Every structure is written in structure tokens, then in C-alpha cells.
């Protein structure tokens, strides 16, 4: 998303557009009446983007103090009261928490800062407000330094970050990773060598200031990080530094460009673009925005959100109605297709109805009658099959004479049924006819009970029993037949009583036996 970035120094204001990682359309305006009017003209011709106001001014003050550790409105009131007492004359003021004291009440450590000369911003802010251009925030290069500090991976030791800005030399002192103070020395030299000289002098002054304010003891370790153009760094590196505990680190602007992933085509002379890119790429809360600016910005953001919702609602509606239209089109197509098929089917129906042959009965009834007749013909019980099987078995056993045969069809396989469960059938033929006995829907079981005798017997029970067993074996060769001996010629089972006669007339001893033959379909 494009951003309109404004960079204000004591001498001038630079305006540029940040879009997709590129700073473009840079315009510079002098901090005089002519520059202000040119800026107003420029704003009229520029796209109405929210303005991000970055200040790099000498008139910026920093105060460290502690506040009781409280929350909510109490904390807000405390901070407000302290800011009023410190910076009564400026609306551009800020307080940030920097950890807590390690001893005592463990108060919050606070850094209060303010742009002490609001008149420097007024003409520019007025020009923006006259054109109702939203100010997204008023930022300070000094307060953006912690972001640069983190990007450059500087540790928690005491560090002095020196950046060469278009407005001069900015020195920011960090301790425990927190910004303690920052100062801007105005540009007084123009050649790399003289800038290097100035840098050395200004660093010396700052060290002296740190020692005198007891922020850093003399000889205490201090890392001095200088971010500047390569030519300036070359001169700085060539000088001997003999101070105890001081460690220098020089960062070329080209190296910083890589850290910030800025395009190689952008020529860096000062550190200004690094801070502008921070504003361009990150969402950073405003440092010094007034309540009015914050409110205006809130409504501007709300306006943008409403616009996005408007577009999204129309887009969603278009998509939804498109989907509905597609479904409706498909339904219409299906309906048309169905109508064509209906006409075709009705035409075929009329043809079929017209060519319907004369019928003697309802086709459904005819079909049922034919089906049932076929079923009966196919499934009806037939005693001949089981009698033929018996006859064949008896062909090889002439000693067996049959006395009685009882054949019947059955819906069950002859297993004993509880006589109480079934009512006794009436003898007059009025018992309901079971379709299963007729072969509907499948063929019934057939049961043949026979009573026979072994002749001649000659009191030879062993032969008689063998003859019966032979008959059983012969019958069971048919896989559909299952034979059980109901009454053997002589019951030799140990569990039942054995009764027989001996020494009497042979005619009295009749080895009769009963078989039950079940034919399964």
C-alpha cells in the first residue's frame, strides 16, 4: 500500500511516495514561506494519501524519570500530569516505558520526550489540514532509532548509534537495549574528511556529556556504531582511537541498504531513506500525534474500511448473484431438456397405447396366473421321485418286504414340532391350505415313512440288521435323501430295553422295522 512520507528537518521538508519498497517522486521544500506555499501547491496535485510526518529536529528533548507502577486510568493520569509539567507548551509529546527499577518500589522507568518547538511543524501541518489530508502520524527519527538498533543487531551493552542525516549528525545513546537520549548536531561540514572530523569531535562531546551526567562512567565499555557513507567511514577508520573500553563499529550505507532490503538502484548519501523505509514497511504507532490528529486518522481509517466493505459487499453480491444466475441457467436448461424428453416420452406412450393388442384379461392378472401355474408345475410335490429311489434300493435287497408306506409333503424337514404350538387340523378338509405345501414359492419337503420286514428271518438278527443298514446306505446315495431308522429290527442300543423271543415258532418272531425318508429339494 502506498504511503505519503514527509521528512522534516530544521531547514527543509522532503516529500516522497513509498510504494512497493521504492521511494519515488521526491520533492524538497525550504522551511520558509515560499517553501510552505510550494508545499501547498504540491499537495493539491498529489494523490490524497495519508501523510506520515517524520521529524528530525534539534528541538527534541528527552527526560528519564520513574513513575509508580500502576495500571489503567491511574497510569494515564500520572503520565499526562508528568508530561504537562515537563512539556506544557507543546502538544507533540510522548512517554514510553523502559522496564522497571530493580530495587525499592520497582517503579516503571519512563522516557519522556517532546518536540519542544511546535511552530516548526505548524505551517506544514496547517497546509495538510487545510486540504483535509489525514495525518497518519507524527514520528521522530530519534524514537525510530530503536528499530534501526534492532535491525543492525546491536546488543544490550551501552551503545552510541551515530547516523549521518541530511540534517546533521544524530547520536542516540542506548543502554540495556533502551534509548536513553538522542541529540542532533547540525551539519557544519561538507567534505567527507571534515565530516569525519566533526563526527570525532561530536562523539567526544557526547562521551563527555555521558560522563558528566553519570550515565556512563569514564572508561566504561561503550560500543560506538557509525552508520554513514563509505568515504566518511574511510577517514574515520584511518584515525587512531586510544580510548579505553571504546569499541568502534562502522556500517557502510551500502551494507545498511542490504539489511533494509532496499533496491540497489537507490543511491544513499544519508541515513534518511533508512528511517523512511522503516515507516514505509512497518506499521508503527504515531509518536507525537495530537488527539485531534489521532481522531481524524481514526475516521480516515474508518472511511477506508467502509470503502473496502462497500467494494467487498458489491463483489460478494456479484459473486453470489452470479452463482445464483448460473444455478438458474442450469435449472432452466434442465427444465427445457425435461420438457423435450416429456414430449418424446408421451409420443412414444401414445404409439404404444395405440398399438396395444386386444386383451382377454388384465395383463397383470394374466402374468400372475401364468407365473403361478409355472411355479406349481415346477415346484409341486411329486411322490414318484422318492418311490423310484426306494424301488431301486430294494432291487438289490429282495429279503426286505414292505408292509406300509406313508408319504406326505411338508413345509419343514420333518423335525419334531411342538404339538401345542400348532392347532389340530380339522378332518373335513376345511383346514386352510398352506401355499408352501403346494410348492409356492418353493418346492416343499417330502417325507416317506415305511414299515417293512425281513423275510426269511430264520432268527438271524445280525443279517436282518445288516439288510436294514444296506437299505439305508443305498437310499442315502441320493444327495437329496436323508434316512433315519425310527424303529430298528432289533434295538441294540444300551440305553433302551431290548425285547425279543427265542425258542418259539419262527413265525412269531417278526423283525419289523420303520424308516423315515426325507427328500430335500
Amino acid at each position, binding site marked *: 500500500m502506498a504511503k505519503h512520507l514527509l521528512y522534516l528537518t530544521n531547514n527543509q521538508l522532503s516529500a516522497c511516495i513509498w510504494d512497493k519498497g521504492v521511494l519515488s517522486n521526491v520533492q524538497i521544500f525550504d522551511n520558509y514561506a515560499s517553501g510552505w506555499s510550494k508545499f501547498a501547491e504540491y499537495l493539491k496535485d498529489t494523490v490524497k494519501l495519508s501523510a506520515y510526518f517524520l521529524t528530525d529536529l534539534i528541538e527534541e528533548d528527552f527526560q528519564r524519570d520513574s513513575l509508580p507502577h500502576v495500571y489503567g486510568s491511574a497510569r494515564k493520569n500520572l503520565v499526562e500530569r508528568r508530561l504537562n509539567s515537563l512539556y506544557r507548551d507543546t502538544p507533540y509529546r510522548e512517554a514510553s516505558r523502559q522496564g522497571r527499577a530493580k530495587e525499592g518500589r520497582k517503579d516503571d522507568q519512563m522516557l519522556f520526550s517532546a518536540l519542544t518547538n511546535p511552530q516548526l511543524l505548524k505551517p506544514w501541518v496547517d497546509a495538510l489540514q487545510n486540504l483535509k489530508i489525514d495525518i497518519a502520524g507524527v514520528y521522530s527519527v530519534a524514537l525510530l532509532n530503536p528499530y534501526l538498533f534492532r535491525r543492525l543487531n546491536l546488543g544490550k551493552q551501552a551503545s552510541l548509534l551515530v547516523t549521518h542525516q541530511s540534517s546533521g549528525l544524530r547520536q542516540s545513546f542506548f543502554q540495556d537495549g533502551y534509548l536513553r537520549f538522542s541529540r542532533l548536531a547540525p551539519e557544519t561540514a561538507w567534505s567527507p574528511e571534515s565530516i569525519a572530523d566533526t563526527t570525532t569531535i561530536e562523539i567526544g562531546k557526547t562521551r563527555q556529556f555521558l560522563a558528566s551526567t553519570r550515565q556512563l562512567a569514564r572508561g566504561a565499555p561503550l560500543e560506538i556504531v557509525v552508520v554513514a557513507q563509505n568515504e566518511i567511514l574511510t577517514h574515520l577508520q584511518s584515525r587512531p582511537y586510544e580510548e579505553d573500553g571504546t569499541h568502534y563499529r562502522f556500517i557502510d550505507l551500502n551494507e545498511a541498504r542490504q539489511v533494509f532490503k532496499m533496491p540497489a538502484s537507490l543511491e544513499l548519501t544519508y541515513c534518511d531513506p533508512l528511517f523512511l523505509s522503516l515507516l514505509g514497511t512497518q506499521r508503527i504507532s504515531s509518536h507525537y500525534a495530537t488527539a485531534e490528529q489521532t481522531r481524524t486518522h481514526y475516521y480516515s481509517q474508518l472511511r477506508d474500511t467502509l470503502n473496502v466493505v462497500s467494494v467487498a459487499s458489491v463483489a460478494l453480491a456479484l459473486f453470489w448473484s452470479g452463482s445464483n444466475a448460473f444455478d438458474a441457467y442450469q435449472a432452466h436448461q434442465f427444465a427445457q431438456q425435461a420438457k423435450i424428453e416429456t414430449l418424446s416420452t408421451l409420443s412414444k406412450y401414445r404409439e*404404444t397405447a395405440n398399438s396395444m393388442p386386444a386383451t382377454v384379461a388384465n395383463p397383470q392378472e394374466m402374468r400372475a396366473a401364468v407365473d403361478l401355474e409355472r411355479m406349481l408345475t415346477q415346484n409341486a410335490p411329486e411322490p414318484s421321485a422318492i418311490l423310484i429311489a426306494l424301488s431301486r434300493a430294494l432291487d438289490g435287497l429282495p429279503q426286505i418286504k414292505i408292509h406300509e408306506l406313508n408319504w406326505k409333503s411338508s413345509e419343514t424337514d420333518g423335525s419334531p414340532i411342538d404339538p401345542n404350538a400348532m392347532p389340530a387340523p380339522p378332518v373335513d378338509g376345511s383346514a386352510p391350505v398352506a401355499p408352501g405345501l403346494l410348492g409356492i414359492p418353493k418346492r416343499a419337503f417330502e417325507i416317506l415313512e415305511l414299515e417293512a420286514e425281513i423275510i426269511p428271518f430264520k432268527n438271524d438278527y445280525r443279517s436282518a440288521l445288516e439288510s436294514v443298514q444296506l437299505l439305508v446306505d443305498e437310499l442315502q446315495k441320493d444327495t437329496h435323501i436323508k434316512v433315519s431308522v425310527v424303529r430298528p429290527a432289533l434295538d441294540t442300543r444300551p440305553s433302551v430295553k431290548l425285547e425279543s423271543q427265542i425258542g418259539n415258532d419262527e413265525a412269531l418272531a417278526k423283525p419289523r422295522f420303520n424308516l423315515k425318508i426325507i427328500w430335500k429339494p
Partner: protein
Amino acid sequence: MAQNQQPPSKLNIGTVKESVKLQGFLHEDFPIIRQACIRLGICLAIAAVLIGGSHFFYLQQSALQQAAQTELTQAQGKYTYATNEKNDIKEFQPRYIQLVERGFVGEEKRLDIVELIQSIQAKYRLLPMSYELFPQQIVPIAEIVMEQTGAPISAGELELRASKLVFRMNLLHEMDMLNLFKSLRERGQFIPQACSIKTSNTINSLSSPQQLEAECSLQWVTMGRRAAAAADQAATPAQ
């Protein structure tokens, strides 16, 4: 001297502040979002019209599609029914006519059966026999499911009937009984149910061969029109 003091009138400071806030909002802040609000309202209205209209159109088309689909299903049903009916007539009518002629479909012709038994006895020179033909009964087949199709038997206005036929006779050979059954089956659906054959205890003479005593029951199965349907058919004049 006591004086009637009027209570001090209340100062609506909070209400005044709220009023000022509201005026500030209306004059300074709302203009920022006024156009966006109007735009949003218009867009929401357009969206509602688009969605509502297209949905209404879709519902209309969907209803038309369902109606067309129902008509198609009905037409297909009619066509399928007519086709099946035509096929059934072609396939089953010749056999059905045969069944009517053979007596399977229609009222029992008991006199024909009496004559048939007489002719069978004469043909096979069977020993004298007695028989009983019991009253006709309806065979319940409504709940029977066809094994091949899995569908219940639907006989329309026809019903399956059976009459029990019991024979008592003497046999010279068990084949006499089987021949009787076979001859009956050739003329109708006579389905054997039970048969008891035993050697005869009575000996007529030394020269005659040993006889068998048999008692067999069969079911004479026919199909006929239900009583109510038959009455309706009789009442309806022929067209």
C-alpha cells in the same frame, strides 16, 4: 425569621458536554466518513437487490425445473407401464388362454373331474375306488414373495383356490396310483399332499394277487376372480 429558600436549579453540565461532543462529531468528523457511509449504503442496497433478485430468479427456475421433472417422471411411468403391459400381453396372453381352456383359470368344473376319474379308472382298469372332493378354499398368497424377483405375488382381482380330493382305493401295483396322479396332472393342477399305502389284510381268493390299500389326498388348484370383483364385472355392461 425563616425564609423559604428555593433549591438551586441543577446545572446540566454533562448534557451540555455531550451536546458539544455530538455537534463536534457532526461538523468535523462525520464529513470525513459521510461519503463512505452513503457509498456503503448504496452498495449494500445494490448487493441486497442483486442477491435477492438473483435468488428469486433461481427459485422460479428451480420450481419450473421440478415441475418439468415431475411431468417427465409421470410420462416415463406411463410409458413404462404401457410397454410392460404390451409385453405382458404378448408374452402371457397365449398361455393364459390355454390355462383358461384347461380349467386352471375359471370356476371349477367338478362334473368334468368326475368324468375324468371314471375315464382314468376305465383306461388303467383300476380296482373300485371311492373319492371325496371337499369344498373349495382360498389359498392365501398375498404375503408370498417370488424367489426370482423378490417382489410379492400380485394377482390383481384373481385369487388362488384349492379343493381337497381324497381317494380310497385298492391297488394291484403302486404304479396304478402314480398313473392316476399323472393322468390327473395332464388335465389340471392336482397336487399330491399325502398318500398312505399298506398291504391289504383281506385275502379275496388264493388265485388273486395280493392287493394294496391306498388313501391319497390331493389339492385341485385353480384360479378364479374374487367374489366382489366378479360381481362388479357382472354388473358392468360389456363394452
